[in-house]
């Protein structure tokens, strides 16, 4: 698939994520956005880590929204002293966390399935400013490396000191911040080396380049963009019409099925 198509699909996923509010629909979007990443292949250990991080995000958001939800109406599920867990807060928290996960998964799917140099070519073809295009593709290129380095730094510290949890929260936080120092220093050195390497290979952001494998939009690309783009446009239109109805700006009786669909599914 052409990288420009992937960028288009990423944009559609973002719009869909903003249009949806139902946890079920956002869950389905989350699964759809995760599928390309799973298809690209990730190791069991990273899958476990990803699931643990996703569970932590969902749990944390649901709990905080469940406790601090202030909108009316709301139904208390459980009370303990001054703390009350609100049903609507839990639902809202679930939707928010699934939206965050869906958009993160869409971005990660794009990152793992698109080579950085192809992304750079696509961004340049879409007339994104050269500096921004280069920064984006370089960040993507070194994302896995930085992830690995964070693990190496944490292990190197663990070899020399006590377990992180055996200290006060403040000391823990300061330690975590200090552990970023080698990663940032290494990233800085790497950025300088990469910049020199690009220069030494004759890269000029403002100049035209030939391409060994030119970007090419095929029938599948256009079909995917047309189908998913149309579906996203329909979702956005339905959401906007419903917002206009709820805001008492426009109400058309003939759109009752649309309003009902938005309430039930979006």
């Amino acid at each position, binding site marked *: 698939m052409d990288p420009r198509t992937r960028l288009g699909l990423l944009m559609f996923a973002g719009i869909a994520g903003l249009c949806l509010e139902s946890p079920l629909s956002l869950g389905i979007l989350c699964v759809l956005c995760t599928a390309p990443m799973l298809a690209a*292949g990730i*190791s*069991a*250990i990273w899958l476990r880590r990803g699931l643990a991080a996703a569970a932590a995000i969902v749990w944390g958001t649901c709990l905080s929204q469940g406790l601090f939800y202030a909108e009316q109406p709301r139904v208390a599920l459980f009370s303990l002293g001054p703390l009350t867990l609100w049903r609507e807060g839990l639902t809202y928290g679930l939707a928010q966390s699934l939206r965050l996960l869906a958009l993160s998964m869409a971005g990660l799917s794009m990152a793992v399935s698109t*080579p*950085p*140099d*192809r992304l750079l070519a696509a961004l340049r073809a879409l007339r994104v400013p050269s500096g921004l295009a280069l920064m984006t593709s370089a960040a993507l*290129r070194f994302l*896995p*490396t930085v992830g690995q*380095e964070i693990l*190496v*730094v944490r*292990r*190197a*510290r*663990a*070899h*020399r*000191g*006590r377990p992180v949890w055996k200290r006060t929260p403040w000391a823990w936080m300061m330690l975590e911040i*200090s*552990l970023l*120092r*080698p*990663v940032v*220093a*290494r990233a800085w*050195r*790497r950025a*300088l*080396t*990469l*910049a*020199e*390497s*690009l*220069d*030494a*290979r*004759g*890269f*000029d952001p403002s*100049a*035209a*380049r*030939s*391409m*060994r*494998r*030119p970007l090419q939009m095929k029938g599948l690309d256009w079909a995917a963009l047309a189908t998913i783009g149309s579906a996203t446009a329909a979702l956005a239109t339905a959401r906007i019409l419903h917002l206009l109805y709820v805001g008492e700006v426009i109400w058309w009786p003939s759109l009752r099925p649309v309003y009902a669909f938005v309430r039930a599914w979006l």
Partner: protein
Amino acid sequence: MKLEIHDLGYTYPGADQPSVAGANLTLSAGEIVLLTGPTGCGKSTLLRAAAGLAGRHGQGTLAGEIRLCGRDPAEMAPAERVRRLGFVAQEPQDQLVASTVGDELAFAMESARQDPQAIAARLPDLLAQVGLQVELERATLALSGGQTQRLVCGAALAAGAEVLLLDEPLAQLDPLGAQTLMRRLRELADQGLAVLMVEHRLAATLPFVDRVILMQAGRIHSEGPTHQSGLNAEQERAALEMGLSVPGQAAPVPAPSASVGAQVLDPGTLQHRYWGAKRDALLPTEFPLHAGERVALLGPNGAGKSTLLGLLTGQLGPERPGVVGVPQDPDLCLFCSTVADEVAYGPVDQRVPDAEQRTQSAMQALSVDDLASRAPHALSRGQRLRVAVAAALSCAPRVLVLDEPTSGQDHDQVEHMMQALREALRDGALVFATHDVDLALRHATRVLLLEDGAVIAQGSPGELVERLLAMKGGR
């Protein structure tokens, strides 16, 4: 003349003294010139300045004149410059700009706006030129260190460069890989390429180079042709005074078989297969360690040395208390704001009673006590490695694990560090992976030879040398 440098100087921002001053050198078509000297003498700075990179990317002050193929390279457009000059820095992994081998090799040709069909036709030749036997669609991140080194060399030559500047191209290569790359460079030079390379490994490079330039303290000390695949007498004397490892000076004396103490670690059977791989990176290996042992892991790139180290340090398996590792890149274990804090971190955090004493003795052992107030990341690579090792040593490890301790260090620095570790680790064990056979023979009490994930031989350095000599005699 392909490259002429007149009175070149470079001063880093905020520095009192220039890192390079008054450098003059010429490079003709068909010759390989070796630029060597002690760590921190300005070799890499001179090379970057010669490539024009110090001027374009550095914030420092550049002086002097550079002529590339008779012209000022600063006046050349990038697309033209890349057809004249190729540059390969240290750290080959950081120089990868594309995701596949084919795209990496094609990048400079695309910059030079060459025809896509011509680019496609040239790629197999480029792979052959640098002796890289991989598919064009192979992911660049899946290559070994040695393969990556060859790839970036090929990428630098891709657009038809007439001058090639290389900064420590052999740093990550095993002896055979280093010899293969040097042979390829010699063949390319014989076809007209001009090569200027910075390298510490004199034994691997001298048989293939035409001239040697010795640098010291930012200045060119001497320059002269090689003599019978070695340094000429005057340069040999100077190199020895600089603490460089001069080939043929003294055959490495195998370390005497030391009596080993009590067992300090029994990691059980070590074995590992990476995710998605079809075979084990390390076949089942027993690796008990005893007090006073210094174990060297030798073997070609991809033999399983790093996997074995990863299993020992807990990177690829369970954590092993008392094992402290220093990764190949020392930057990744320096997270304090001063050298003193860095070395003190382990004992202070573990709240051991003699923390200050341990810190002081580790700093003195690795000669970093005079750097105590400096920021670790502002030091040279060799100094950063010594700080990282001192920080590991201050934790009084049962087993200290070092991955390629010679990388970026000159002979004297490596010798000093190994001697210090020999003294400091009397009650513990040292395990180090290296491509430097001499280092292993001089300092190890046990050597493991690995190949394709298996330990094919092990024993004391003396025993191994005898076995190798016997095999040679048998043939």
